[in-house]
């Protein structure tokens, strides 16, 4: 099986052809011009990862709380994670870096606050 991948590491944006065997293991990467491209292509074809950022409505604050996953999470879990985030509510005040939701969707990754959020006066 072949898969085409656009490299995101730099503005060159190499178009890479990745060949996978039946066990979905990478057999070859073609079209990359540096080792970073090869590494990215292999990750992208086996288990693509993404950071998720969002905002969560907060009680006692007119401004919502911005959050992120503390590490990249598997891309295929994004819809499931977003569904869970849309039901989430927090209560101000919140510290920057505070864990808002531990082990999100069984990934072992925590959802953390990316700003301090004081309670409104």
């Amino acid at each position: 099986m072949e898969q085409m991948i656009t490299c995101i590491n730099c503005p060159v944006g190499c178009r890479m052809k990745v060949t996978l065997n039946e066990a979905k293991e990478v057999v070859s990467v073609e079209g990359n011009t540096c080792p970073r491209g090869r590494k990215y292509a292999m990750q992208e074809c086996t288990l693509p990862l993404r950071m998720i950022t969002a905002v969560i409505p907060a009680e006692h604050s007119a401004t919502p709380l911005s959050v992120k996953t503390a590490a990249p999470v598997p891309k295929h879990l994004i819809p499931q994670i977003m569904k869970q985030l849309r039901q989430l509510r927090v209560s101000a005040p919140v510290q920057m870096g505070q864990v808002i939701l531990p082990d999100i969707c069984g990934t072992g990754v925590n959802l953390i606050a990316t700003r301090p959020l004081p309670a409104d006066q």
Partner: protein
Amino acid sequence: MNREHVDILIIGAGPAGLASAIAAREDGIESLLVLERESQPGGILRQCIHNGFGLHRFSEELTGPEYAQRDIDRARELKIPIECDTTVLSVSPDRVVTCISRENGLRQIEAGAVILAMGCRERPRGALCTPGTRCAGIYSAGTAQRFVNLEGFMPGQRVVILGSGDIGLIMARRMTLQGAKVLACVEIMPYSSGLNRNIVQCLQDYDIPLYLSHTVTDIKGRERLESVTVSRVDERRRPIPGTEMEFECDTLLLSVGLIPENELSEGAGVSISPATSGAVVSDSFETSVPGIFACGNVLHVHDLVDHVSSESFRAGHAAAAFVRSEKRESVFLFVQDGEGVRGTVPQKIQLPPAQDVTLMFRPSGVFRNASAVISCGGKELFRRKAMIFTPGEMASYTLKADSFAGLDGSEPLTVRIEKGAE
């Protein structure tokens, strides 16, 4: 009205204003003041909740609020006064700043030096001459970003995005994750000015089609937007009849460029460069008006906040040197844009330079396997090869102070891109 006095007054508490204030304070300037029209410092980073900021400066990927917080915390440590909810009305050529706030009313402040750090704003619909009705539901991408990320509400549910700059791409993903349907991203140019990373992670990840060489040719709706028409354009960017596609949508987001916000600068008599729409500055970021400095997106629009910060630290140090009356010889070497180059900053370099000089410019097109060449009167000072130059990525090169030895300013410095073999 009684007049106050400060040594350095900084207009804007975004990344540029904060970095320049930190640098000036670290140089020992006791009397300084930052004015901010929003209710909190941080500037546009407050609404940029996505990650990818700070890779150059901190060697890690931060979200916008996290990046801003580092500078806010440092400014607090240094006890830098930041007055929020304060709007500057005018700056005079002799550096009297008039500002107004609910708390303090109308005030005039004399400043030993002024640093302009007001940032930029988005090109509005009016600048595009797009036909169609004046219905609700048309926003700039940054306005929508503010609604979703800071005010906590969605501007619409079926969205078309015009322009493929990074803010438009980021908002395509943001609106999708919040449950909206993004139908298309439409770009008049044959290439996107956004980063590859954003095209992959904001459009391709969510199967949002990118229509290159297309534009919006009609906008329909009485009260609220009902649909937009998208047409293919020819190589001269004229719509081709018969290629129309109709998208039913309630929201159109515009991501069609940024303009430095220089009304205050112009009022102070600062010369503006037609290439950057920002001030003409020397290598110490001093404008054409003595003692008035400019840095960040009000000077020229950057792609990376890391570059805004490093430029603004240098501007802060230079303003501190100015108020300490560190006079320098005023022989200038003028900088001109050569082939393939637009909007080189700074536009002039004081000879001999006190330190290394960083030249920043935007390539005027896409050039592969080309070289950036900096020369003066037939003498080549600098050459650097790159696999690609694109208008979406600002080029930045630092020349050692001693590489200017022997230059007397009689001939300009030329920055150009030399095309390589395809």
